[in-house]
């Protein structure tokens, strides 16, 4: 009940954000947070629930951006371009999964890293197709149902709608039998096979789901900047997404969102005051690993519970005294 209330309250705050946060600069930062949170949530399906840490998700994210940008440049309407882009991302995810799911652990990480680098290489070096380092410009943002998304506020609300859709889908997925099966393959793959589960197929389908959500994030990333360059597919982007997941809390729903907020705020807000903001972000990550290895959200919950217990104990002691 409290969970549902908290969720409703959070939605209300987020939906009214453009009205109380009047500075467009901050509205844009909120959009960025939502976009990166979608990518972090996508990665969390694999890294968190499947126990498969991918370092190639920027490849899938950028794949959607590039596919949509190229389709629009080729004359397609925005809707067609988006559908094509998501289809292309799904195909890429399937190829990623077929190759990387031969292994788990470090080998899985290395294979996804290599696959991500291949896509980055294509974006960077296949200049006749991708325009190389110069990237691709998009003339305008899409206008769904004739509503222009050119203003920061309108774009924020559209991104929020997609974000809420993704969060809801994640929530349903995690609580479903399939979600439970996926977590089972993370904890006891051998036992799962002996119980009759097709561990490979479960992981494969989870990979597709993860890739699709990464693709949705990639679309909004393109619409936000109206520009995409090879940097979107770089290893640095993959690592950043992974850091969001790990710092926020792997295998939780709120964790990756909090992690995305942390990184984006550091990047765009703290960098205005501190030149070496990367150093501060690094220090924060080290602190998280040292003091809250389970991530910010589960760590805070643990602290809060401990504090409440201590307060109750003190109250009980005072009562007795």
């Amino acid at each position, binding site marked *: 009940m409290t969970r549902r209330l908290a969720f409703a309250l959070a939605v209300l705050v987020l939906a009214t954000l453009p009205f109380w946060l009047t500075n467009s600069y901050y509205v844009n930062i909120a959009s960025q947070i939502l976009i990166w949170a979608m990518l972090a949530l996508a990665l969390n399906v694999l890294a968190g629930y499947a126990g498969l840490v991918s370092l190639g998700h920027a490849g899938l994210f950028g794949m959607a951006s590039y596919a949509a940008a190229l389709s629009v440049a080729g004359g397609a309407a925005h809707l067609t371009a988006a559908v094509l882009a998501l289809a292309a991302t799904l195909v890429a995810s399937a190829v990623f999964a077929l190759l990387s799911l031969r292994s788990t652990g470090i080998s899985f990480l290395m294979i996804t890293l290599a696959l991500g680098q291949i896509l980055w290489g294509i974006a960077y070096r296949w200049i006749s197709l991708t325009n190389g380092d110069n990237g691709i410009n998009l003339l305008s943002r899409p206008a769904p149902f004739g509503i222009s998304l050119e203003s920061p506020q309108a774009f924020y609300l559209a991104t929020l709608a997609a974000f809420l859709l993704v969060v809801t889908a994640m929530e*349903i997925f995690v609580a*479903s039998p399939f*979600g*439970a099966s996926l977590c089972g393959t993370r*904890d006891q793959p051998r*036992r799962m*096979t002996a*119980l*009759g*589960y097709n561990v490979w197929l479960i992981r494969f389908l989870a990979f597709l789901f993860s890739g699709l959500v990464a693709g949705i994030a990639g679309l909004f990333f393109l619409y936000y900047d109206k520009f995409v360059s090879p940097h979107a597919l770089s290893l640095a982007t993959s690592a950043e997404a992974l850091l969001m997941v790990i710092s926020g809390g792997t295998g939780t729903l709120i964790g990756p969102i909090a992690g995305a907020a942390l990184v984006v705020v550091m990047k765009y807000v703290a960098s205005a005051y501190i030149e070496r903001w990367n150093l501060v972000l690094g220090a924060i990550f080290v602190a998280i690993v040292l003091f809250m290895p389970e991530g910010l959200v589960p760590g805070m919950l643990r602290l809060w519970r401990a504090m409440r217990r201590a307060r109750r104990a003190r109250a009980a002691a005072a009562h007795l005294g």
Partner: protein
Amino acid sequence: MTALEVRELQKSFGGLTVTANVSLAVKEGERRLIIGPNGAGKTTLFNLITGELKPASGRIMLFGRDITRIPSRLRAHLGVARTYQIITLFPGETLLRNAVLSLLGLSPLRWNPVVRLDRLASLAEDARAALARVGLGAIAGRPLGETSYGERRRVEIAMALAQRPRLLLLDEPFAGLSVEERRDILRLILGIPREVTIVMIEHDMDTALEFADRITLLHFGKVIADGTRAEVVADPRTREVYLGE
């Protein structure tokens, strides 16, 4: 009818032959005990029967059907269930969720990504019944991490029984238990109806003898003795190999 038949099964790890031409047949409803010293290849034999390992040669028949090439997960659907010598459960979940995962493994519902698992009342009910069967009904909601080792041994058995197997493979179900706990688990195993054929690996002969109709003695991957309980116990090779006298 023969529930399980193993014919001339071979398996080596590198140069070490762990299953050397093993043949055995277990009748439907039989209670078979497999004994042998450490490294005799008992657990490897189980892994071959469940399909976790592939044999170099030989055949495995389940109720007359050749399952040698059938993947492990499908053998569960054909009625093979097992427990593990080293406890292999879902540590972050409750006992109930552990049992639910066992039931879900054979249900088409396991592919469903949209219903809420905790709203599937009949599944939870069956899981509770499976836990009640091993005497854990009262603590079904407890996280596995807060249970004792003996209780986890019971969960292992509950997970296997929940799948209503035709062939149950128990890998050292008494390992690490106290004398009383062993007695309780033995009573539990003796209470399993005869529709279920049981093959059990066990070191503890004192506890396990009462269970066995027939005994197979393995040593260095070979079947040394195979016969009724009395025959194998009386066999001088049993004393030599196993009892170390």
